[in-house]
Each structure stands twice: as C-alpha cells, then as structure tokens.
C-alpha cells in the first residue's frame, strides 16, 4: 500500500498545528494507522521525512506506545479492562469467555479479520465496571453474555452503539478522529452515563447546592431542570428522608 497524496497532505497539516513540528508525531502515527491499518514501514519513513528526523527516532516512538499496532488489525478493536477493579468485578471472566468464543488469544485477530481482541488497562470508567471498549468507545457494565452478543453483532456487521458514545464505525475511522480530524458524530450519545450522575441526582433530590449565585438573564431556561430553591426541592423530592434533611438544611442556612 502507498500513502495517498491526501494522507501526506494531512500528515503535513498535523505537523503545522504545533509550535515545533515534532510534537505532531503521535497524531501523525495515529493517522498512518488509520490510512494503512497499522504503523507501516512506509508510514514511518514518511513521518521521518516530514519531521526531519530519522526513521529510528520514529520507530522508537511507535514501539513505545501500546495504541500503535505494527501488525495488521481487525476491522474492530475490542478491549476488555482487566486492571484490578474491573478484573475483580468480572473482567477476567469476560476476557476468558471472549478468547474462548472468538478462538483467539490476547492481541490476536479473528480469522475473518473482523475483531482484534486485547486486554486493556484502566480506561477511567471504574464506576461502570466491568468495562469494555470497541474502537475506544465505552461499553459499560458488561457481562460475559453481553460481551458475546456484542462481538457477534460486530462480526455480523450489525449497527452497534456505544453505551456512552456514538455509533461504532471502525478502528481505522476511530484512529482518524484520535489523530485530529472530526467525523461529525460528536452529538451522538448522552452527556453523561447514569453512574456519572448519581451524586448530582442525590444533590438535586435533597436540594443540596454549592451556594453559587443564581444564573443571570438568559440562564432561566436552563434553570428549569434544577429546583429553584430548597423549598421547591422539598416539593419535588419524593422521599420522606430527603424532605426532613432538606428542612434541616434550611434551618442551618437561616442561622
């Protein structure tokens, strides 16, 4: 495969985004993977050429970071978190189950070229354990059954949506976004998943706030979601416990 003129122009564009062009090497390698399916020798040479450094220097970087793949990847990258917390909560069992179901080991690709399976380190979603990723999109609160269903859907080419993100595209398309080019899917998915909101929900139910000034003018529209006052919060709250605690808070404020 040869890198297209478009890709080379985009590599140069990435180099131009930084005060010193070598800073663009990580994004450039992401783009090479996106275009080529892995970090190829040609890709390394082109990066070296554009940045005016040696191929050894580029290779040194490409082999340091785990997201760079030197072997051809499957259409989808499936990650299972097996760092301690996810492992204990079920990640180990999910990973074992997927290896068995797909007939591959860690960092291997299925025969149909659809899936590369890898156990990954903590991906900052511990409140959704056990966590998986597909092309670095979150799949929260997984079980062995849901994991098998997920990879079957991916292999069958069905449309799959991240539990907290966008529709799954492909590993190569994901790498392009990571490199620095938008794909128009930003507005898919929620602002936050349920676990991200538990504290906020409790605070809203009980009328707890940080005591910030009310939002001026146009902000009224946004305020509709929040209780206007602690009294309003009491009215909205549906448990007796929240009510009594909120009343206590009000007393506290008055003193």
């Amino acid at each position, binding site marked *: 495969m040869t890198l297209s003129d478009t890709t080379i122009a985009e590599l140069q564009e990435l180099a131009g985004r*930084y005060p010193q062009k*070598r*800073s*663009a090497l*990580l*994004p450039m*390698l*992401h783009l090479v993977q996106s275009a080529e399916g892995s970090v190829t020798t040609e890709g390394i040479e082109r990066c070296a050429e554009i*940045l005016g450094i040696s191929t050894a220097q580029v290779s*040194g*970087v490409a082999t*340091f*970071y*785990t*997201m760079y793949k030197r072997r051809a990847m499957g259409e989808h990258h499936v*990650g299972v978190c097996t*760092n*301690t*917390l996810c492992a*204990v*909560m*079920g990640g180990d*069992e999910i990973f074992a189950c997927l290896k068995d179901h797909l007939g591959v080991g860690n960092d291997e690709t299925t025969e149909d070229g659809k899936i590369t399976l890898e156990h*990954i*380190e*903590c991906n*900052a979603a*511990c*409140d959704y*354990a056990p966590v998986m990723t597909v092309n*670095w999109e979150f799949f929260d609160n997984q*079980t*062995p059954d849901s994991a098998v269903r997920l990879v079957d859907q991916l292999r069958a080419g069905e449309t799959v949506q991240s539990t907290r993100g966008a529709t799954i595209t492909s590993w190569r398309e994901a790498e392009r*976004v*990571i*490199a620095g080019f938008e794909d128009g*899917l*930003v507005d898919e998915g929620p*602002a936050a998943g349920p*676990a*991200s*909101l*538990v*504290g*906020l929900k*409790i*605070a*809203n139910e*009980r009328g*707890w*706030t*940080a*005591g910030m*000034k009310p*939002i*001026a003018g146009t*902000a009224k529209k*946004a305020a509709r979601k929040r209780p206007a006052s602690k009294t309003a919060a009491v009215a909205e709250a549906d448990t007796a416990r929240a009510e009594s605690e909120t009343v206590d*808070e009000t007393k506290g*404020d008055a003193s």
Partner: protein
Amino acid sequence: MTDTLTPVLTDDWADDRAWTLEAYRTRGGYSVLEQALKTKPADLVEQVKDSGLRGRGGAGFPTGMKWSFIPQDNPKPKYLVVNADESEPGTCKDIPLMMASPHKLIEGVIIASHAIGAKHAFIYVRGEVLHVIRRLRAACREAYEAGLLGQDILGTGVNVDLVIHAGAGAYICGEETALLDSLEGLRGQPRLRPPFPAVEGLYACPTVINNVESIASVPSIVREGKDWFAGLGTEKSKGYVIYSLSGHVKTPGQYEAPLGITLRELIDLGGGMREGSELKFWTPGGSSTPLLTAEHLDIPLDYEGVGSVGSMLGTRALQIFDQTTSVVRCVLRWTEFYKHESCGKCTPCREGTFWLTQILQRLDSGQGQEGDIELLLDLCDNILGRSFCALGDGATSPITSAIQYFRDEFEAGMHTASHELFPPAASTLFKQEATV
C-alpha cells in the same frame, strides 16, 4: 452550614446537549471570561492562590503557587499544558467531565493561560477515549468560531491558541515531565528535576502543567469569588472535588462534595455496600496510594486526613473491595500493571517491578517460598525513592500496605492459591445477579 454534596463541576452533566457552547452559556458559562481577561494576570494568580485551590491530579500542590513560579521576566514563550491523561487505576473523574462539559475546561484554560502569560495551551488527553476526544475537538472548534479562542479574545487583546492533543496509550505520560516529552513527540519518559517545568518545560520554555479538574475549577473561582471557594472544604484542603466511588458498593459513581467528607458518608449516600458485602480494603486515591481498611471509614477525605493514616488523597479514586476479594490477587494485578507501564528509564523501577511480579505470581498461585514476604518488602525498599518519577514509588504502595494489613493472606500464599481461598466468581457482579 455547607451541604453534603455540592455540584459545581458536575452541575450541568444532566443538561440536554451539555457539551455544546449553547448549553454551557445558558448555565452562565463564559459570562465572566471578559472580566477575567481584563484582570491583571498577577491579580488572577493571587485570586487563585487565596482561594486555596490545590492540584486535583493527585499531589495537591497549590495551583496559584505553581502559576506564580513562571518567571515572567523570561523572554521565552510560556505554555499551559492540561494533563488529561487520566490513567491511574480507579480514577474516572476527568473523562466524564470532559465528555459532558468540555467548555468548562476550555474556559479555565483561557483564564489560566492569561494568568501565566501563555499564548499557547495544550490539552493532552489520553488516546483511548474516542468520544471524549470528539467532544473536546468540537468544543475547541466552537470556542474558536465564537471568538473565545484565537486572537484578541472578546476584544481584550488577549491571544490564546489551544491544541487538543491525543496520546497513544502510556500510563507514564500522566507524569508531568513524561507528558512533556510525549508532547514533544518523544517516548514518554520522565525528566530529571531541576530544572522544573516552570523554568524549562515544553520546548525548554516556562510551562505550567495542571490537572483537568484543577483548571475546570478556575471559572467558578473567578465567578463566585475566592472566599466562596475557600468557604468550602476544610482548613487546609479548600473547595469541592469529585469523589469517584467504584467496586462493591450499591451505587458506584461520581459524587462532588467539599473536601473532608468521609468514605462512610459517601457509601451511605449511595445506599451502602452491595447486598451481603462487608468492606475489606479500599484505595483512597488510586492504586498508587496505600490501601486502607474498614477502620478508616471515618477519616476526613482531605489531604491531611488521608495523610494522617499513612496514605494519600491522590485522585479520590475510591475503589471498594469486599470480603470476597483476595488482596494478593489484587496486588499482583496492580503490580503487573506497573511492570507493564514502567517506561524502563530507571533500573530500580524497571527491574524491581519485574521481580515483584514474579514473587507475587508464586504467592498468588500458592507456590510462595519461605522469606518471600521479606523479599517483597526489601525490594520495595530498594525501589521507593530511587527513580526519577513516582511510578516506582506507586508500585510499592499497594504491596507494603497490603502486607501491613493482610500479612496472613500473603503467608497463606506459601501453600494455598488465592482462587481457592477467594473464589473469583463470588466477587463478580454477574454472580451477584445470578443469586438474587
């Protein structure tokens, strides 16, 4: 009287399309930006200093003081780098923040850049979070289109350019000097200090590196005032933070509260431990902070409180493990992580984590040898404080603390495998589902 939970950073996460500029503005976002950019940089630094804001990335260094270390008489360009490489096991606060409310971070970036005299800022976000990267890139574009980034922001004459830079999978890049090397297009390896980044950071220029949560807290300090911020929290640990609860609790998730709340309060807010669970051990701030046990349920979770019981507040990554969990299995898995992520620069860390893993593997499988516990402690002693950065130090924390509290489990590793003492199926969530 302060409320138990105080949503500030998390307050708009449930809003419709919270990640857009429009939604952020309806919440008062960017409303104080113009005023902030017209404020003298030195006054902003003072304001943040006086607020008592301390770094939220783990170390707790006073943010305003960090800003004041930038030598303003140095003719070189100054840089602001946001550390969004959230990778410490258990830590999961910055990722949801940037997914839901990227403009909060960007507004903080603009204000902080002005305060330190930086015309160029970077958000170094870990590469393995596609949707977060999408949201950051879109928010950055929107901010440019609205004249909130770029040249002469809001007619104030202030210029700030922002680059969203994605990493490529390396825990070590959360260490600030390794992050700088990575951002320069090198392998992510820590630098020897001094010189500190404030003097020679990115491209050997004065650089401030701050955590996402620290920078995202800045707009609220400017808007509500330093006294409001300092009025939350405890004497030396001011303000609010995000506590991330995970593991064997009924309601894992993000809880934003003033510094000083206790683990007992947090677990109770979410309805307690999962059915049938008793707390066995927990991490206060990720796997690099020494483990604590049920006897520490009532210590205030602020920098001083956690420090007083021999651990560290870290990133408030509260990973909760119950009585079904083998501490040896957990410590082995963390140690394997540190071995995998050690950058290889310093011998004690590179070789030490390798040896630690081998010993823990045999203890985990019930093949431990006489003297293995002493050997582990001796190795830890030879790693701690003997490398450029804190990765090696962090690797020793779970081991020494686990031996301190659960020595008998390590002794059992001389004859019985951890999976026999603690069948892993009992710890999983779906086992729980099956029995209910």
